[in-house]
């Protein structure tokens, strides 16, 4: 896809044109820069508001395990950072293989007539509001996890420390499952794009050597698109890290650091959603905003990294084709 390049000096015949031309261009440029300015404003405002907390706790904010709103005021983010990392890792563990399977099926294996409707259905997963996933998580997923899946896991793998304790259904494992479902459309659609950017000559070369369709996919497509797959996975991670409502409703909301996935937990986003408006002192409010800053920086770094990966592979695909 190439952009249309306006040639200089064209259409400068009339007087309204000479006035309207630069005015319109400058106006739209200004608006666009304003939109980017909002991103910078977000960073500045959050940093400004978090300053009191940053000055009071420094780096120990990230390693502190206590959130104590009564004197002596002490705020630490570690239980929430831990919960965020664990649930996001679970989401990738469950979500990535399924998403890649979907992307392979939709771009390489499915008969053409079924590709468009199936792609549409998978993308509908992204249209369901987070809070509805949460509702479903509480009343449909959690009971199934509590009565069937978690007892079954405990029966077979119960000796592992990550599967200790009484299954309750509203825990880190359930939150991870919900997150996996929510990041499937992101990962599968971005990796599908990366697969479609693989030139057909790659597939034809493999097929002409007598490879089966799966071997073609593995050798020609997956290997060629691996940077794009990686970018897709990181984009999914970015979505999982920032996801709020569905996790808040299924993780059990308890500020503990425990190894077992059957225990409740708390993520950065869920802690903010639950307690932000109940901050009692200016320092606690500042600590909450610093949590938001941490969340924003995590998601910014993850997303910028992913964008660069995806952009690189798509450009290479176009160039080679």
């Amino acid at each position, binding site marked *: 896809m190439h952009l249309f390049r306006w040639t200089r000096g064209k259409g400068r015949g*009339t007087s309204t044109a000479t006035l*309207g031309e630069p005015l319109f261009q400058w106006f739209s440029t200004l608006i666009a820069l304003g939109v980017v300015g909002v991103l910078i404003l977000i960073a500045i405002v959050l940093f400004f508001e978090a300053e009191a907390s940053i000055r009071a706790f420094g780096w120990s904010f990230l390693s502190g395990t206590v959130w104590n709103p009564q004197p002596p005021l002490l705020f630490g983010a570690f239980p929430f950072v831990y919960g965020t990392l664990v649930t996001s890792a679970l989401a990738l563990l469950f979500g990535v293989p399924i998403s890649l399977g979907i992307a392979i099926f939709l771009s390489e294996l499915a008969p053409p007539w079924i590709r468009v409707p199936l792609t549409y259905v998978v993308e509908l997963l992204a249209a369901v509001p987070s809070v509805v996933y949460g509702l479903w998580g509480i009343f449909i997923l959690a009971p199934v996890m509590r009565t069937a899946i978690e007892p079954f896991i405990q029966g077979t793998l119960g000796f592992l420390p990550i599967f200790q304790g009484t299954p309750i259904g509203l825990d880190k494992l359930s939150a991870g499952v919900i997150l996996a479902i929510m990041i499937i459309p992101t990962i599968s659609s971005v990796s599908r794009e990366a697969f479609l950017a693989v030139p057909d000559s790659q597939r034809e070369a493999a097929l002409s050597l007598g490879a089966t369709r799966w071997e073609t996919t593995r050798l020609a497509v997956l290997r060629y698109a691996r940077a794009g797959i990686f970018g897709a996975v990181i984009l999914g991670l970015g979505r999982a890290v920032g996801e709020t409502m569905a996790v808040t409703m299924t993780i059990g909301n308890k500020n503990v650091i425990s190894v077992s996935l059957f225990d409740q937990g708390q993520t950065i986003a869920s802690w903010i959603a639950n307690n932000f408006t109940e901050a009692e002192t200016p320092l606690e409010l500042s600590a909450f905003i610093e949590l938001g800053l941490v969340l924003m920086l995590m998601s910014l770094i993850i997303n910028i990294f992913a964008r660069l990966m995806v952009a690189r592979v798509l450009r290479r695909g176009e160039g080679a084709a």
Partner: protein
Amino acid sequence: MKLPLDRDTRRRWIDVAMGVAAFVCVVIAIIPLGSILLEASIRGLRSLSPALLTSTTGGGGIGNAIQGTLILILLSALVSLPVGILTGIYLAEFGKNRLGAAVRFFVEVMTQVPSMVVGIFVYSLVLELGLIGLGSPRLVFSTISGVLALSTIMVPFVARTSEEALRLVPIAVRESSLALGIPRYRTILRVVVPSASSALVTGGLLGIARVAGETAPLLVTAFGSNDWFRGLDQPIESLPHTIYVWATGPYVAQNQAAWGVSLVLVVMMLGLSIVSRVVIRLRSVSR
């Protein structure tokens, strides 16, 4: 151990097995979607009634939540569509340079900022502006705050979809207009934008659907209310907020009714999404 199959047969079986595995992945992804839609329909329809739709959340209904969501998305659309489309115009028509590439990159990054962070940002911004005399700190929990938060989420989304929509307009259309001596800003506004109108509408509808289901930023901005809309400077209820409160509350009747509210919200959003698909389909057929 040697398998009782020769090499080629085994390769063929692996091929079939991987094909089946990939198909199973699609099925696994469709199960939760089907389950959500099914449960929302069955449990939701059971709890829907005229009384639920017309009374306020204070009286056990969702009339004020429907009203609130409509007000929030209407005002957000009024702010976001012009700004987003203009940004899209800049990116598609004037953005073929370093600055354009940078703006495009940051707009894409903005679409991924967690909505909870956007909520905190608007809360802090309104609070600080209030403290220095612009508005009032009281406005942190208000319709205005809610609209600001939803617009911050919607603008980059609309900018991206608008850019893509405008890029689909063939270059020949622009050239024909310029060849007639029409200045380029008029070419953009009178020729390019109208040709892309259906795709622009689609992007706008998807943007509205995107923010209609947002809950997290509203928790710290619009806040929620048990009353009908009382003014732009007052807290306002919304459908996602009602779902959250009722789903996590202790009352079984409210838990049940949360499915009805979800049905209303999902039907609204899927409706928007399907309408936008149909617009695309009709457009491509008529071409």
